[in-house]
């Protein structure tokens, strides 16, 4: 429904109201446990979720250059209980087309200038339905169908709300030969919908809650320019972007507890991320979420070289050649109480650039991207760099440089060092700098001259290299982590990550 009024040339008002009622069904099925045995007919399960939205928007434009927009969204979700179903999400925006002002209208230098400011809220209800009730699920016992309670219902679930304030400027100079934008934002997400790891004495491992708040602040630049523009023969274009983001956990509901940060016991509100594996190695959380800190800092044992033969104050169970784990609480025992912050998976900035060169019939494009300042917990190196036993593969470096009384290494532990097997935490020896610069794509093309052909309208031959070069100090296969991307409780952990494929492509494009 639209309503539009123009009072005179200088004032314009648009209003718009929308209404949607959206429901989706997802059909699940109760699966047979083994392909060979179908103990009961497959059952279809209907998962229904419904969303009602009301949207109202008003836009007021003054003098064709000041634009005010106000929006109100009201969303109702079937996934929450009565009283929590509806969320109200207003937003306001202002834009100033400065280029249209008299003092810039005729400027040769400035070809575009637009300032933007906005504040708004959005809601998130992206959870599975039926989480507010305790549900009974099916299993099998003997040959019979059995029922068991499969979750803790949380009646208090409600919308997760993100409030964002942003300021931005878009600009172009010299007939938009150079363009760019700068954006700053601050956003706070409250009532985070998260799968909280809960005490297993509840009978369950996790609970869906609205817990805590996170603040993100960021600065983003994007610039692009035509460096050489020699019409037909020679063109060079370069563009780049860089983004800085800082996260901070502003509020958690957990009661303060003891945690060691920078060598001192502190009382902080925090929770641990998920355990990485369920076997003997890395069967512990890698991340910790502490109020007042960035999200998902790495937690584990700080190390300080290798215990040597003449050292005297070895903790219980350690011998020369073992890794010298810092006994943070100085009780002579290395255990979970000695965990501390050992790294930060959040990058300082991420960036990318694109170069495009055309020279006569030749064209070249180069795409790079990179990340700077993040740490990676290299889970694979737990087994590769600890000479644990005779049955697991280790790197040659680990084996040939292993500590022995005759070869008192301060880096590589002795053959047989077994502490990480079943350990309560990771050692900071597996935390590595994850910064990298990757030349993601290089394409060189050539337009085959076909002016005299009646058959072809265009023919282009090209060779393209994807992921040819990566500059990084990271020792794992791929610094662009792909493990646990679906899990917000695990950040920056490389666990059996696959290498990133490099490929070279030779191609021919022909148009008739």
């Amino acid at each position, binding site marked *: 429904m639209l309503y539009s009024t123009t009072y005179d040339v200088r004032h314009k008002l648009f209003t718009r109201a929308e209404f949607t009622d959206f429901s989706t069904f997802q059909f699940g099925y109760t699966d047979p446990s083994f392909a060979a045995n179908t103990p009961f007919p497959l059952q279809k399960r209907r998962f229904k979720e419904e969303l009602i939205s009301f949207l109202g928007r008003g836009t007021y434009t003054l003098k064709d250059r000041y634009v005010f927009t106000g929006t109100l969204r009201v969303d109702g979700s079937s996934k929450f209980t009565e009283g929590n179903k509806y969320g109200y999400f207003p937003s306001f925006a202002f834009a100033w087309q400065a280029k249209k002002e008299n003092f810039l209208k005729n400027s040769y230098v400035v070809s575009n200038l637009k300032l933007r400011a906005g504040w708004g809220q959005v809601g998130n209800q992206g959870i599975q339905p039926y989480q507010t009730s305790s549900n009974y699920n099916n299993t099998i016992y003997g040959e019979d169908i059995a*029922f068991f309670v499969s979750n803790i219902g949380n009646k208090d679930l409600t919308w997760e709300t993100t409030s964002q304030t942003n300021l931005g400027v878009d600009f172009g100079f010299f007939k938009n030969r150079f363009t760019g934008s700068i954006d700053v934002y601050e956003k706070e997400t409250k009532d985070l919908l998260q799968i909280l790891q809960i005490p297993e004495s509840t009978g369950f491992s996790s609970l869906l809650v609205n817990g805590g708040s996170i603040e993100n602040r960021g600065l983003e630049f994007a610039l692009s320019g035509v460096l050489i523009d020699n019409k037909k023969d020679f063109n060079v274009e370069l563009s780049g972007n860089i983004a800085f983001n800082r996260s901070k956990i502003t509020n958690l509901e957990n009661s303060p507890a003891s945690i060691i940060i920078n060598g001192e016991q502190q009382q902080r509100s925090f929770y641990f991320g998920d355990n990485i594996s369920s076997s003997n190695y890395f069967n512990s959380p890698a991340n910790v979420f502490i109020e007042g800190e960035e999200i998902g800092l790495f937690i584990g044992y700080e190390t300080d070289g290798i215990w040597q033969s003449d050292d005297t104050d070895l903790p219980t169970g350690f011998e020369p050649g073992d890794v010298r784990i810092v006994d943070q609480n100085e009780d002579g025992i290395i255990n979970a109480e000695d965990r501390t912050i050992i790294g930060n998976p959040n990058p300082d900035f991420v960036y990318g650039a694109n170069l495009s060169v055309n020279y006569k019939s030749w064209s070249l494009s180069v795409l790079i991207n990179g990340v700077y300042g993040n740490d990676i917990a290299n889970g694979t190196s737990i087994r590769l760099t600890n000479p644990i036993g005779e049955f697991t593969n280790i790197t040659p470096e680990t084996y040939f440089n292993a500590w022995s009384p005759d070869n008192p290494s301060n880096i590589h532990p002795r053959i047989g060092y077994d502490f990480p*097997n079943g350990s309560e935490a990771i050692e900071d020896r597996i935390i590595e700098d994850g910064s990298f610069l990757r030349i993601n794509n290089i394409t060189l093309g050539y337009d085959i001259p076909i002016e005299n052909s009646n058959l072809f309208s265009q023919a282009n031959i090209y060779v393209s290299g994807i992921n040819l070069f990566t500059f990084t100090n990271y020792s794992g296969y791929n610094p662009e982590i792909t493990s646990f991307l679906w899990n917000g409780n695990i950040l920056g952990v490389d666990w059996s990550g696959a290498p990133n494929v490099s490929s070279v492509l030779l191609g021919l494009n022909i148009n008739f």
Partner: protein
Amino acid sequence: MKLQILLFLLLITLVFTSCSLEEEPPYLSNANVYSSAETASAAVDGMYRGLIEYGYYGNQFMVLNHLSSGFGVTRRGGTRNNTADNSTLSSLKPTSNSLQLKNSWRAIYNAIARNNDAIASIDPMKPVSLDELVINDAIGHAYFLRAFNYFNLVRLWGEVPLRTAPALKETINLAKSPISDIYAQIIADAKLAQKYMNGNIGNGTPQKYAADMLLAKVYMTLATAPSSHQPESGDYWQLAYEEAIKVYGIYSLINYGDLFKKETSNNTSESIFELKSSLTATLDHTRAFTPNWYTGANTFGWLLANISVYNRHRAAYPDDPRIDATYISTWTRQNNGTTQNCYPVNASRSFFGNSFPYILKLGSQDPTNVARETTKNFKVYRYSDLLLMLSEISNELQNGQQLGYVTEVLDRVGQTPGAEYSNGQASFREAIMREYEFELMAEGHASFNNRRRGYAYFLNNVILPHNNDPLFDPNVDVTLETTEDIVMFLPISQNEIDRNELVTE
């Protein structure tokens, strides 16, 4: 224009009122599960299913119980005595991150949550109809299993969180309770189980005698426990007798070897409390506990016995058929036809892999088997255990019945009680404690029986005999820890410490 707006508002009003946004879950909830006999029976199956999970009797609790008894080691994680499992659990030095410890903790509490949900959802009634009898039986099973599960927890860990109602968001953190409170709850629950279990669900679920036996075990444990662990002072041996004797004569012994063969083991007259295994819901015993390549399936043979334990049985009853039913030391490898010999057939003990007899009884007994799933059920409580309990209790009470019960157990395997049984109460006591070991090796009792009579008993009858065995070889054997604070209870799971604000160690 105005009409348009009016119409629009009308539309919205209509839709907002017609769209209730109410959820109609495709799942059952506790309100409807316990309303009919059929669904309540299925919920009881769900409770027993909780006990066959991988973390519980399906696999990891069996490993935890065997290794933490001081009776054995494992091949899991490598054939050497310094793997994570052997240097921690098997050496009686578990850490809060020991895998089987964490998995068992999670699985036992998961089973308890099912019991709590049932208990919170239904009130027992004065039954009139058969349906009401079935629902009462379901309540009885919930109480029985809650008592049973907490009894496992308190014996392994000591003080643990005692949760007796379904967890809510507000109550996820819970502090540990004193041991005496946990036992008080166990006793109360077991008595309610006795009251409500009526056998109407049937279908392989235990009868109320299982609750009698459980309560007898609880009282026996308390009889020799520190007084701080006892909910109240009392003659616990007498109480134990009164419960155990209710079960006497109800069941009977079958051929010992038949207890562990798939074809003959299920639902026998000896079984008091049995867990079902089927191809679709299988115990993991065949995969994990069948010696490697004893059958054609890829199995792991995780459980090995310390040789001091094996030799003790051999010395007490040299021609006991239980030895061959329990252990195996030589077999033809089904993958390549070679013969695998280990201790004592090959007594060289040249490396870890050939230094111990394998536990055979839990896994597959059939070399032609190729499946890793099994239809062999597992007996949590057997009648011979009850007879040994009666013998031990009677010896403490000196009621004159003690020799009769143990004679029944030995009789079935062609053995007779030795001279130590006629040499006074203390000598009898020492001998009867060994009978549990010979009869029930690796069946999930040793960890409890070895600690039940206190630290001194554990040290002098299990730990030191192993460490000081003349055949002890540090290259293959583990040295058992001797410190009381370390060996008597397991440390709380690290997951619990990390996540429960009220549990710090």
